[in-house]
């Protein structure tokens, strides 16, 4: 299951090492030995061993991922309630989504706001704190661990419950703001404040991308900063012209994974709204609405169509990011 914390191990692996890993596998595969009878026999033995080791993964991949995806694509064009046979309805589900279902449109809107506003803030916080931690090695370990902790528990039900209590009327947040003369009441039931509250919950989990940024910052050769300084670059220029380009592959991967994760926010929205997506549908995030349609209303055809729109949207965003990376992502050791 994809969670906020998932980004860490994946992203730290970095897109660079993904690319290298793919190349390595292809190289290994291509390393064919000249064929003679005994060689061919050895090759066959390798193939048997390979598929033998891969068997559990292969069963899972075909039976729990590829198969269900195909089935889901079929369901997207049907009406299906789990008890009667699926009924083919063509594009009706998609037409209904975009023309007859204002709840769906609202769900898309709030999810986009959450993703497009929340992710950059979270990554900016992660980068800022990573740079602060990078200033000094001694003593930074404790802080790094403390900042990372929320990423591990952020998606849990416990934290969602805490968040709701903290932002409720007369809760700690309301209370502290009143102290400064800002009297806005509870955030939970407030149509305008509930999305900012959810974004704050996401930003609070800045630790996972921060750890990845920090590892990236430590890889930047100090000479580059020294050279920039000799050329008279000020702090802003060094940040803009050394840190950002040298970190661009890490930024790219963090961005990709955080966006994909943000689209899938579920548990916290469910708990904070008691499964309703309220107030006034303002926490009815995409996956929560999908869940409600699919499992509460048993409109499994419609929910499958929604799921495929999400897959396509994520694929398009990933595609755009990969396309644009040529212009802004710099991989060390590669000529530009």
């Amino acid at each position, binding site marked *: 299951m994809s969670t906020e914390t998932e980004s860490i191990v994946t992203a730290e*692996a970095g897109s*660079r090492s993904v690319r290298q890993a793919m190349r*390595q596998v292809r190289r290994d595969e291509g390393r064919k030995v000249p064929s003679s009878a005994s060689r061919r026999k050895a090759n066959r033995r390798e193939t048997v061993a390979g598929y033998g080791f891969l068997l559990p993964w292969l069963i899972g991949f075909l039976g729990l991922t590829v198969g269900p995806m195909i089935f889901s694509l079929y369901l997207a064009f049907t009406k299906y309630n789990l008890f009667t046979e699926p009924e083919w309805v063509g594009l009706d589900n998609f037409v209904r989504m975009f023309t007859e279902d204002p709840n769906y449109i609202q769900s898309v809107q709030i999810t986009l706001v959450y993703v497009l506003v929340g992710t950059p803030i979270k990554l900016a916080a992660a980068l800022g704190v990573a740079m602060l931690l990078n200033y000094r090695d001694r003593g930074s370990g404790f802080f790094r*661990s403390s900042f990372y902790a929320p990423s591990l528990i952020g998606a849990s039900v416990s934290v969602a419950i805490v968040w709701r209590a903290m932002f409720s009327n007369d809760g700690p947040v309301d209370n502290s703001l009143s102290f400064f003369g800002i009297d806005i009441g509870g955030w939970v039931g407030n149509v305008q404040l509930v999305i900012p509250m959810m974004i704050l919950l996401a930003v609070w989990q800045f630790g996972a991308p921060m750890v990845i940024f920090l590892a990236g910052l430590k*890889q930047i050769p100090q000479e580059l900063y020294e050279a920039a300084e000799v050329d008279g670059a000020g702090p802003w220029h060094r940040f803009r012209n050394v840190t950002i380009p040298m970190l661009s592959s890490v930024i790219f991967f963090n961005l990709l994974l955080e966006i994909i994760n943000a689209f899938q926010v579920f548990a916290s929205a469910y708990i904070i709204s008691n499964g309703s997506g309220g107030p006034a549908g303002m926490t009815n995030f995409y996956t929560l609405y999908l869940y409600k349609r699919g499992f509460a209303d048993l409109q*499994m055809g419609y929910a499958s169509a929604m799921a495929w729109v999400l897959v396509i949207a994520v694929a398009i965003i990933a595609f755009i990011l990969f396309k644009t990376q040529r212009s802004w992502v710099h991989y060390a050791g590669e000529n530009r």
Partner: protein
Amino acid sequence: MTTFEAPRVEVVENALEPTTQPRRRVKRKTVNTIIWFVALLALTAIVLYPLLWLFLSTFKPSSEFASNPGLIPENPTVDNYVKVVEGIAGTPLWRFFANSFFIAIMAVIGTLLSSALAAYAFARIRFRGVGILFAAMIGTLLLPFHVIIIPQYIMFNKLELVDTYWPLILPKFLATEAFFVFLIVQFIRNIPRDMDEAARIDGAGHLRIFFSIILPLIKPALITSAIFTFIWTWNDFLGPLLYVNSPEKYPLPIALRLYNDATSTSDYGATAAVSFLALVPILIFFIVFQRFLVAGVATQGLKG
């Protein structure tokens, strides 16, 4: 953000200063370190505040929540803990913990076994089709899993496995968490091939090499995978929400939802106590294994 940048800026000024004023430099450096330390301490206080608030709130009587949103309980009590031990919906609290532990342990065993096997094949065996399969495995990393929950549910429903733990555990034994496979693949790649080749010459097959050479060497990657699997399974909400219906089979997150729905309007204290207790195993794991979680993991992939 600007406050975070400040110390950096100053350190740069430092570097530009002529070295003929060592005393001033040292003093300046100390001041910077103090600013740095205080800024981070303040940030830590903000970041950890919700957790501290939760912990201290478990000692507040429920009636105090409305009047005292602060940290310190006015009339501290352990009543909340006494009350929640009884459990909810006719099921004692320990049962939810036991269920969560069972699911998480099985998930760890399944993930480690299946991911290590698959990773070995991807990293060490040359066979036709490995490139495409590896690319497909990487592709599943980016797939929004919501696209498969409906057909998977239909499938497990047809197999009459709903309201058992099978739908939660079986996928782990089939290495569906692609990214542990990837993590271990990267780790195996860093192990020199000399030893496997020596073993091969001595006539060892892949099974022997896997069990007696590779497996002992990838222990750090296995530990990291185990910890993450445990924590994610422990936190997982959607899975059990879909598949587990009987209260006596509930893992903690779903039981917590019961508290949240049924009692939160009246009994904040109990809800806070259970919420905190549910986090304790993760926090313990975190404190014990943070070396693996933060430091070990962060550097490993990036050096590529």
